[in-house]
């Protein structure tokens, strides 16, 4: 009975906290972007098609599989773990946990105005957007910095004295769970980010606390290594994004970093294991929500909102958007892969989908960077005043609390050039990855080349969509 009352109270509190009072998404900092002019859009689109055909010509003459540069500049092993390394590692780990705890605490005891509180700018701008940009460039450093993992390892090693719990939990990770935990948690996260009351510091802290408790519980049940590799949404997300980066980080069964290798950018994506179809769904949701975030700022979406909001409300309209865009992406991917399957007559649609899903990752990453470049540079400055006054109490610890944003830090023209070039680079990388995967999947080069034509069309569409979204901020109208 007590449990029932407790559950009802918790549910009511949670519902009260989660019901959106004012929709912000990242919106506690305004965007002042100018949409890219038509000329940039056309040049970008044309270059996309030109590069696609150039790359196809290059691949047509190729007889052997791409030899990828796997030279490792340095590696960390036991011998290299000297005092300086250990000191630096401990400082980094300490700061990661400190910032995590500070974010949670400031949400509970600090100002409820997102701009005056450390948690909202840090979590949404610095971590989600900023770290999301750094990771594809450098690599999956989340493996090292994940504060919940650090806390768990500390507890089981130093308090419970059972380091075996890092590798093996109380139970085996159930096969039937597959990647459902990451699909569900990513949908919830995307909803919270785009529709929910995400910028409210108190709400954010409650979510972070719940996420921490659940993560620690699942790590205990299934072992930290198993859970982080299969069930933890951010570890899987950063693992995919980090595969694009120049550093490959390898950890042992006890989650200790054993190797840090320098590699050619992007090639890590070709090393990712062929996933299940459920994983494809997760990946498509990931791509779709990234695109929806930009799409929701366009005139097209405003028109849809005007049409739907009177009958179903804003929250439900945006929720539908979050589901519709990934669903559309999935259907397109399925049609393209089905076409490839028919053309090549070698592999099933499912095999082709699982083999080529990572080919779209570079375009998504490029779009993410292009879309948020000016945002992180301008709105990211919101972190400067709250460093001195994390709770909004009027402190001035480092003398920066009166800092005003430098809105001229990036010129619109530079932002346009960067955006178009980054998106085209993403397209080129996608074509290369797709080709490498095709050579692995299909028996002959000629079949591999043939398989690339429908996929190339999908990539051109995705690139054009990314360019179009960047050319369409609502501020243009």
């Amino acid at each position: 009975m007590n449990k029932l009352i407790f559950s009802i109270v918790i549910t009511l509190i949670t519902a009260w906290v989660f019901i959106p009072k004012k929709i912000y998404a990242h919106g506690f900092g305004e965007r002042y972007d100018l949409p890219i002019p038509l000329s940039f859009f056309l040049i970008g689109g044309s270059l996309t098609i030109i590069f696609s055909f150039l790359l196809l010509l290059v691949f047509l003459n190729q007889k052997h599989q791409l030899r990828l540069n796997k030279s490792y500049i340095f590696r960390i092993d036991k011998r290299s773990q000297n005092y300086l390394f250990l000191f630096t590692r401990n400082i980094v780990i300490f700061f990661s946990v400190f910032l995590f705890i500070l974010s949670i605490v400031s949400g509970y005891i600090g100002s409820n105005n997102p701009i005056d509180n450390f948690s909202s700018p840090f979590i949404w701008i610095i971590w989600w957007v900023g770290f999301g940009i750094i990771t594809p460039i450098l690599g999956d450093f989340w493996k090292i910095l994940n504060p919940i993992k650090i806390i768990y390892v500390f507890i089981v090693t130093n308090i419970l004295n059972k380091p075996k719990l890092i590798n093996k939990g109380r139970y085996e990770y159930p096969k039937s769970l597959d990647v459902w935990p990451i699909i569900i948690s990513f949908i919830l996260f995307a909803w919270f980010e785009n529709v929910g009351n995400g910028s409210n510091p108190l709400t954010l802290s409650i979510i972070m606390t719940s996420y921490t408790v659940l993560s620690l519980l699942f790590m205990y049940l299934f072992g930290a290594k198993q859970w982080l590799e299969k069930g933890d949404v951010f570890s899987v997300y950063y693992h995919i994004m980090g595969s694009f980066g120049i550093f490959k980080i390898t950890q042992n069964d006890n989650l200790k970093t054993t190797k840090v290798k320098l590699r050619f950018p992007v090639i890590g994506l070709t090393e990712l294991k062929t996933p299940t179809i459920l994983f494809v769904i997760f990946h498509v949701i990931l791509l779709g929500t990234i695109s929806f975030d930009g799409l929701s700022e366009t005139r097209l979406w405003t028109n849809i909102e005007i049409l739907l909001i009177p009958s179903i409300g804003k929250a439900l309209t945006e929720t539908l958007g979050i589901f519709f865009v990934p669903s559309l992406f999935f259907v397109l991917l399925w049609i393209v892969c089905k076409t490839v399957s028919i053309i090549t007559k070698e592999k099933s649609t499912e095999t082709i989908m699982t083999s080529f899903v990572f080919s779209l990752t570079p375009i998504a990453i490029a779009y993410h960077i292009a879309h948020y470049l000016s945002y992180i540079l301008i709105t990211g400055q919101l972190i400067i005043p709250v460093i001195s006054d994390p709770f909004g109490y009027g402190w001035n610890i480092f003398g920066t609390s009166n800092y005003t944003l430098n809105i001229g830090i990036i010129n619109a023209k530079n932002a346009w050039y960067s955006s178009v070039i980054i998106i085209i680079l993403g397209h080129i990388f996608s074509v290369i990855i797709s080709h490498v995967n095709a050579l692995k999947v299909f028996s002959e080069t000629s079949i591999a080349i043939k398989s690339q034509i429908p996929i190339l069309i999908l990539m051109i569409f995705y690139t054009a969509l990314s360019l179009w979204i960047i050319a369409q901020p609502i501020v243009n109208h």
Partner: protein
Amino acid sequence: MSSIIKNKLPIIILLLTFISCASDNSLNKISEQESSINIEIRNMQLIPENIKTVEKSQLTINIKSDTNGSIHFHGYDLESIVNKDELSVLKMNLSATGSFPVAFHSSESSSKHDTHYSDSINLSADDNEHGQLFESEILMSSQTYSYKIPANLSAQTILFHDHMSHDLTGEIMVINKGNISEIKIYFENNTFSPSKIIASPGSTVTWVNKSQEQIKIVSGAPPGIENNKHVHDEIIIGKLIVNPR
């Protein structure tokens, strides 16, 4: 040859990126220029709606208004007090490119609407105060209450709430397009459905009490909620568009 292209292509493109950015920076050395523009705030609308200019210049904005209040340029975070039928001058150093919302905070009360505006009317901050626009009787189960949005109302947001339960709030976003229609808002399961609607001026909004509770529909934010006032009394009237050189 093909392997060279394969390996070097991204590097070549990266180099081209840096070259293009570097060449673009050279353009920034253009000396500063001065320009001026006349703008008008009439019936809560900015004329012209978009103030277009280029960066790295001094812009003098001559502002005329038919309403007392203050004009606020977001991003640059500059504010200027404007008095009715008086010329106000604001000087801006345009150091940043972008599209910056221009907002107006009216300082006039709603009682002046009828006397001042013959073509269209606008809500001031006070209009969104408690009960200023409409207030229903207590509605029992299945009873209704209707409010007709004035046909000459400008684009803005009208707040409403249930006076019996201050947590239950909603918004009518009035936009100057679309057809005049009748929109129903149902009260059931302790909530307004939909709680936010978009309606054109002249439309009729009807609240239908489908619950067993008693409700009372009142315009404005619930008493004691001061935070919302600032958000809603600020009306975006246009944009300052600063293009790069």
